């Protein structure tokens, strides 16, 4: 075969064929990547749209499961979230006093703790912590159901897995993330106050003066809306990754890992999105 090729081709044609093959490979790679990306986008969009439709369609299916998921995703996650928030508040207070170094009045510790906790740290740190706990949990659970063909069994019996498996988790995430974050805000600012009083010898009136100085209800609204979006994103990603699991136990592990990674990335992307679309320019209007 090789001899025949060498006989058929004119002299010098092999050198010209190699760059053409490389170019075709590169273009093919780009095309393949584009097609894969578009396919993933389409699958994800259809998954989100189906979930939205399922919320409106099968209320009786998802409603009983939702409270159970609220407990598992929200209430059960409360200790780790509050633990993170309390230490964040303490560290913030100490960092603020260290940074001010006498140049800025110490009651601004209260301002910094309140603003940072409510606007950014409580939603994002809690979201990241819950992305690890909740996202991995959902992906592993649904992934196991997929590889053990429990999901297939549901479909065979004529049940749509979305209202039964996905919608309760997404709704629970959207409702409970703000609840957990609200508790984190209170605990974070409270921890900052205790640290300021005990470690920085700042009086309670001074700390509260700093908290009230630039406080706006918008701070809390912004943090809670942001955390609700984090909750929906984390649970959707976990469900999507779990239901697309393939390859047994290894596939389940891979699905859990990718759910955590995608959730963390999405939280940061959404954080920037909200900052650009909502926070930017709001300061002048307050």
């Amino acid at each position, binding site marked *: 075969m090789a001899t025949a090729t060498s006989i058929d081709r004119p002299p010098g044609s092999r050198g010209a064929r190699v760059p053409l093959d490389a170019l075709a490979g590169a273009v093919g790679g780009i095309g393949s990547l584009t097609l894969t990306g578009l396919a993933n986008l389409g699958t994800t969009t259809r998954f989100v749209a189906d979930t939205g439709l399922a919320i409106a369609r099968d209320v009786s299916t998802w409603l009983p499961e939702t409270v159970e998921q609220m407990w598992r995703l929200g209430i059960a996650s409360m200790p780790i979230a509050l633990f993170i928030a309390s230490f964040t508040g303490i560290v913030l207070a100490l960092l603020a006093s260290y940074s001010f170094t006498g140049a800025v*009045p110490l009651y601004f510790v209260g301002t910094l703790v309140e603003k940072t906790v409510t606007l950014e740290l409580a939603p994002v740190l809690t979201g990241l912590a819950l992305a690890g706990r909740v996202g991995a949990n959902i992906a592993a659970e649904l992934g196991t159901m997929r590889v053990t063909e429990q999901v297939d069994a549901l479909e065979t019996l004529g049940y749509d897995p979305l209202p039964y498996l996905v919608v309760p988790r997404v709704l629970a995430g959207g*409702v409970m993330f703000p*609840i957990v974050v609200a508790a984190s*805000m209170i605990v974070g600012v409270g921890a900052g106050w205790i640290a300021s009083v005990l470690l920085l010898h700042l009086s309670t009136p001074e700390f509260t003066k700093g908290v009230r100085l630039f406080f706006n209800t918008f701070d809390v609204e912004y943090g809670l809306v942001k955390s609700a979006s984090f909750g929906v994103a984390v649970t959707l990603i976990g469900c999507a990754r779990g239901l697309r699991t393939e390859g047994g136990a290894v596939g389940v592990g891979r699905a859990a890992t990718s759910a955590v990674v995608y959730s963390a990335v999405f939280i940061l992307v959404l954080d920037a999105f909200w900052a650009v679309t909502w926070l930017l320019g709001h300061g002048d209007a307050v």
Partner: protein
Amino acid sequence: MKRKTDILVGFIVLLVVAATIVAVAWVKQADFGKRERDVVARFRDVGNARVGNAVVVRGVVGGRVQAIELAPDGWVIVHLRVNPSVVFPADPVVLLNESSLFGEWQATVIERSALPHDDVVRREVAEAGRDGRTLPGATLPGIGKLTAVAGQIAGDVASVAERVEVAFDEQAARELRASIKNVSDLSSVMSKVVRTHAADLDVLSGQLQTAVASLNETANTVKLTATRIDSATTSPEARSIVSDLAIASTELRHTSGQIRELSGRFASTQTKLDAAITNGDSVLAKINAGTGSLGLLVNDPTMYRQTDSLLTELRALVTDFKANPKKYVSVRIF
């Protein structure tokens, strides 16, 4: 079990929601019982005042700014929420001013008579108080404006320093030194002239004294002769002549006394002038010798160099002050 979970989840959700609402209301100092009273003030401009800023009466926080809204005819209406226990002074006015260097503003309620002596502020207050329904208000300049004025002052000082440096250069110092030396020389010449003429004045004075003595003697002789004539003659003509001669003699004596007195004064003046010239000469000699502060100022170039160095440092200080006013101006309010 399911029922228990539902109740627990619902309870925790409600608890967190309630805690959040209470916390926000506490931080915002919400007035649910409507016990606080609203006061409305009118301003032309509110600077950087914001909702939530403190309302201060006699240095005590007695409320906060509740709302700020634009009003017709270029006015800004500020709603103040004040504690019920706070009593405003008689004829109150509201001043918006910075309470710290960190963007914090406050609304200070004071009596109109306690307004700062600033024509702009007083005019603003008078204009804002014309409607009679709201408290009149004015805004005091912020740190930015004060810094700008300080920068302008620093620029003026730098300009003055520059001009002083231009006027008092090395050439000027040299000329000043030469002028003082010339005055010293002139004084020395004058002293010599006065000494020379002092001898002549002594001679003149002696001659005058001699002349006066002679005149005195002559007058006595005339008087004696007249007396003799008076006693010798009894006729009225002769008596008249004698009388005239007596008067002339008296006037001559008086003139002689005046000349003597003038001569004495002249001698005294000469002595004083001599002493003054001697003293001046001594001082100028010291200056020329470089003794004392004035002598050092005239003869020692170190003085000029130090003055020149001082001006250079002053200009650097002013430039640094303009560049970093906060380094030198420290306003502490808390």
